[in-house]
């Protein structure tokens, strides 16, 4: 078997086992509420400026690109519809999670990786406590709570960015823009994007923790694990997005 296939199997097996441990320890006491709140702050509040800048820029660029393209065919009026649907169903959740995979995933892996190479994870175990409960579960729960909320914020900021460009550069009436967005985006559209975010959040946290806990080779190993964590999470998010989109598409057809 080739090394790449073995690595993939190791990663798949390792993350599956880690997920199983998280689920089995989640309902055992103690649950470290203070650590969970700390992670919600770290992941949520501290990522907010990055998400706002990313989502705002994405919305503005999309409005501009669609505006320039559709203007030739007299289709400028469709900009609010196209941009808002694209943001709510795809760009908001996926872009937010890709950006967070880099910020949060890298942060989780490097922090836990440093703890691993300095034997702090061993110390947690040697002191009769569980690294899964103290280190992994707060990060997973923190990500599961904070990332979906951040994606909602990204949707709003993205549409707001598109509205600004629409009003200032493309000559669209802001009231018309808002009306079109409100009549276009329905609850199923919002949910189709929103329900992807817990899956992506789980991927970011579990993959980040897995690479951090399995670091080998000192500080060089921490750097390498951090890189692998970001790449793996990003690929999983993009590939997972296709399957989730297809799933929600089939589900909506069935409804």
């Amino acid at each position, binding site marked *: 078997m080739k090394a790449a296939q073995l690595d993939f199997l190791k990663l798949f097996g390792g993350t599956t086992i880690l997920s199983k441990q998280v689920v089995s320890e989640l309902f055992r006491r103690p649950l470290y509420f203070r650590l969970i709140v700390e992670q919600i702050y770290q992941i949520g509040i501290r990522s907010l400026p990055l998400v706002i800048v990313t989502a705002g820029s994405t919305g503005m660029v999309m409005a501009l690109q669609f505006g320039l393209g559709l203007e030739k065919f007299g289709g400028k009026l469709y900009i609010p519809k196209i941009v808002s649907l694209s943001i709510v169903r795809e760009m908001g959740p996926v872009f937010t999670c890709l950006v967070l995979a880099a910020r949060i995933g890298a942060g989780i892996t490097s922090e836990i990786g440093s703890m691993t190479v*300095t*034997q*702090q994870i*061993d*110390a947690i*175990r*040697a*002191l*009769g*406590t*569980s690294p899964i409960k103290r280190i992994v579960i707060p990060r997973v729960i923190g990500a599961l709570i904070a990332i979906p909320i951040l994606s909602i914020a990204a949707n709003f900021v993205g549409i707001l960015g598109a509205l600004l460009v629409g009003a200032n550069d493309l000559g669209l009436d802001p009231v018309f823009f808002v009306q079109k967005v409100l009549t276009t985006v329905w609850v199923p559209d919002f949910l189709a994007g929103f329900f992807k975010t817990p899956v992506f959040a789980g991927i970011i946290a579990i993959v980040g923790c897995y690479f951090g806990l399995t670091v080998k080779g000192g500080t060089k190993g921490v750097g390498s694990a951090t890189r692998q964590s970001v790449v793996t999470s990003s690929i999983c998010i993009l590939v997972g997005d296709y399957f989730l989109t297809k799933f929600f598409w089939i589900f909506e057809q069935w409804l």
Partner: protein
Amino acid sequence: MAIIEVKHFNKSFDGHAVHKDVSFRVEKGECLGLVGGSGIGKSVVLRSLIGLEKPTSGEIWIEGEEISKLKERDLTAIRKKVAYVFQNGALFDSMSVYDNLAYPLREHTAFNEDEIQTRIHDQLEEFGLLEAEGKLPAELSGGMQKRVGLARAMMIGPKVILYDEPTAGLDPYNTLKIRETVLRLKKKGVTSVFVTHDMPTAIAVCDRFVMLGEGRVLDERRADELSRKDPGPLERFITGDYGGY
């Protein structure tokens, strides 16, 4: 009565056997020196005594309980009885010295914060670390980090302490401090296993030695049986005539 018993311990990493058949026992209140050349796997044995490593085969008995097949969750009770002092202290670098010492108390006892504060203060005083209370580990010297690590390991009164090279890289002053602490704990009846290359300290604190090499126990001797006239592998290792490989 043996508080620790290792039977036919075998440990392999990626198919490479580090230990093939290691057996020894540690009596209650005894300080056992585990010695041998660099890289022969003394720390692997020590880590296995607290379940941080699982043997490939063989048995490890702690106070009459076989621990090598216990699940991580079930090792908690063992880890309250057996403390591990890491080579570099392994202090939690995001916590102050106070919080590092409070960690085992907050996790395993029902003490309120006032009681915890009193106990930490007493412990810091006993270990000569009062001035370090509010500092982060990064602000401490290597010697102080090791002493804090030792103080943390002692917080909930373990019956056994496993020392992983506690004096490595320390100046004579800090080495002496650690040595005094180990002797003080020994007087209190704490059983210990001492992995070290620092032979003067080992001879000062250990009652008995087990020498590892070639994946097995090469020599085993009480400290008062060490002889210069008829040196075995252990004496030759101590005097530097034999690497133990």
